[in-house]
């Protein structure tokens, strides 16, 4: 039967909504009533039916609208998509991965046919039917990374692995939580994580890098990260800070439920076979407070997490301005009862 794709916007009139089914499958990131950094990496294996892990590359009801929003961002700012010259092979690796996974998970929407290096790709939701030669950039309208990531939800960073480090040498980044590919391009793992508070002292990045450089082909890994965004805006980039930064001052007790969104990133890590690089998809899920609190367990837990969050983390995540208003609003939904462990709704 396939997915019914919503017509909606992530800017201007902000018509983005989650259907009731999509509220239930939201990847709520807190398994207990408090949050602190940890190296929360686990194998990226298929999860339960009806969850965002049902397929390793998730396509959902927001797919078409997200791809339209990406095209708008790129038209205004082409530097959101960059690939250093040595990364073209990795771009082909990524094209293969995303075509294979989307066709595998959603055969009613995507079809990949291969005859040697002659490939045909059909993307029905976006009305694309292209035949091209794998490995020959001149047979596609864009470079391989840009071509496929204009058709795949989430941001994508391709990391080159050398000298025992990972280097941000290519990416498509239009749905980011306040970081810039144009600023980070060419940086190594420690350089681009330099602004993150607390985690360096805990030695988290040293351990995380050791883990990531050992990611093996056929054994992807994943973790969840989160922040909060005012209005369902995908493009919260430093480049456009003037457009979304002031939104944080618009939160009132009356509009919390509609304006404040929990933003969860499902980050996964995959070894790329030909280039030996790593691709790091960062898939963004948004849910407004009114939708989230339809699950009483999530409402209680989110109240406790935001209330008790260390100040440095609240600042880093940009919550300072509206945190008191949000905590006050959520506190009315927290009767103090015990909340079961685990992520899912009760």
């Amino acid at each position, binding site marked *: 039967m396939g997915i019914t794709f919503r017509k909606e916007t992530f800017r201007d009139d902000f018509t983005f909504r989650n259907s009731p089914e999509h509220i239930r499958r939201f990847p709520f990131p807190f398994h207990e009533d408090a949050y602190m950094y940890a190296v929360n990496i686990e194998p990226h294996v298929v999860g339960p039916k009806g969850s965002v892990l049902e397929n390793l590359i998730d396509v959902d009801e927001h797919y078409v609208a997200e791809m339209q929003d990406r095209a708008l961002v790129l038209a205004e700012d082409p530097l959101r998509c960059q690939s250093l010259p040595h990364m073209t092979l990795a771009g082909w690796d990524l094209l293969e991965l995303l075509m294979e996974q989307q066709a595998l998970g959603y055969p009613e929407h995507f079809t990949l046919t291969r005859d040697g290096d002659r490939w045909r790709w059909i993307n029905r939701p976006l009305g694309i039917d292209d035949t091209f030669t794998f490995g020959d950039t001149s047979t596609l309208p864009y470079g391989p990374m840009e071509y496929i990531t204009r058709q795949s939800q989430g941001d994508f960073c391709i990391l080159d692995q050398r000298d025992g480090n990972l280097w941000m040498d290519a990416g498509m980044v239009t749905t980011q939580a306040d970081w810039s590919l144009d600023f980070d391009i060419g940086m190594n793992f420690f350089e681009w994580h330099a602004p993150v508070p607390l985690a360096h002292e805990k030695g988290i990045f040293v351990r995380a890098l050791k883990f990531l450089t050992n990611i093996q082909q056929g054994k992807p890994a994943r973790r969840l990260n989160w922040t909060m965004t005012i209005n369902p805006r995908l493009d919260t980039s430093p480049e456009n800070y003037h457009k979304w930064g002031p939104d944080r001052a618009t939160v009132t007790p009356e509009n919390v439920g509609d304006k404040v969104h929990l933003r969860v990133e499902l980050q996964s890590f995959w070894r790329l*076979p030909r280039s030996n690089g790593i691709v790091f998809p960062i898939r963004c899920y948004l849910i407004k407070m009114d939708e989230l609190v339809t699950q009483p367990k999530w409402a209680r837990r989110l109240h406790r997490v935001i209330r008790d969050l260390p100040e440095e983390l609240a600042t880093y995540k940009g919550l300072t301005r509206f945190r008191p208003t949000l905590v006050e609003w959520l506190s009315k939904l927290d009767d103090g009862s015990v909340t079961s462990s685990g992520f899912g709704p009760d």
Partner: protein
Amino acid sequence: MSTGTTKLDVVVSDVVPVNDLVTRFHFRRRDGELLPTFSGGAHVVVEMRDGERTRLNPYSLMGSPLDTREYTISVRRDDVGRGGSLFMHRNVKPGMEMVVSYPVNLFSLDLRAKKHLMLAGGIGITPFMAQTAQLAAEGGNFELHYTCRTASLGTYADVLRERYDRRVRLYHDDLDERIELDRLLSTQPLGTHLYVCGPAGMINWVRDRAASLGWPAETVHFEHFAAPQPGLPFDVTLAVSGKSIRVDEQQSLLEAIEAAGVDPPYLCRGGVCGQCETNVISCDGKFIHNDHWLSEEEHRSGKKIMPCVSRFEGRSLVLER
């Protein structure tokens, strides 16, 4: 049995003697599907079931990464080693079902290089077979210098000359031909990366000369798998799993741990990747460290061991496994 990599069920599709010392093995997937794509320089770990004993040896993939219908490896017979290569030469026949790991690359090309300068010694030629195939297909700039004992032991020298002509330069020990290393390293264009695979002495020589001649360390790449060496048997207590084991003469410590039903992670089984690093809880005796992973300081500390290649001599050893 390992937590390291995913496994592939394969069948031996061909066994081809190459010369007096080297035999080539071809593997295809048992289900007839294509094998996973790999990058030049990758290896697989081959599981050898030899009666009661299981050996796991890493071998570089030497076919073209563009052709994943089969994987090919070349095994040099080592008459005084622990028996893995002898098992391959004597026991592995076409049609035999085996298990190999997914490919792992610890000797990757640096794709930023303007030129790839490759130095191979003996059986160290195998990763370059795949890397040259990959680069040639992309129009990459490479040059291969290959030293072997004699022309008849110059494994694949003829194939390489035929494929790449003057981009391959051969040196024969019996004719007293030597790589003019200093001249070679002093005359490369900016942006060249250096790759070396061969005996430990050759790797050390090339790395030393490159460092002396001002090559930045990040442009010098080397494949340094140490084969586990046989040695005196020793006893080990595995504190976490509560087991006492004996490592016999021909067995590595890692293999003995695995034989006891404990599965430490591993990737290379050659002392370079760091996956099987193990903490020492207590010991009375001396370590024989053969790895390239731990620092000299860590070797001296007696607090860590790489069980894939290192051994122990003494009264007692307790490991955190």
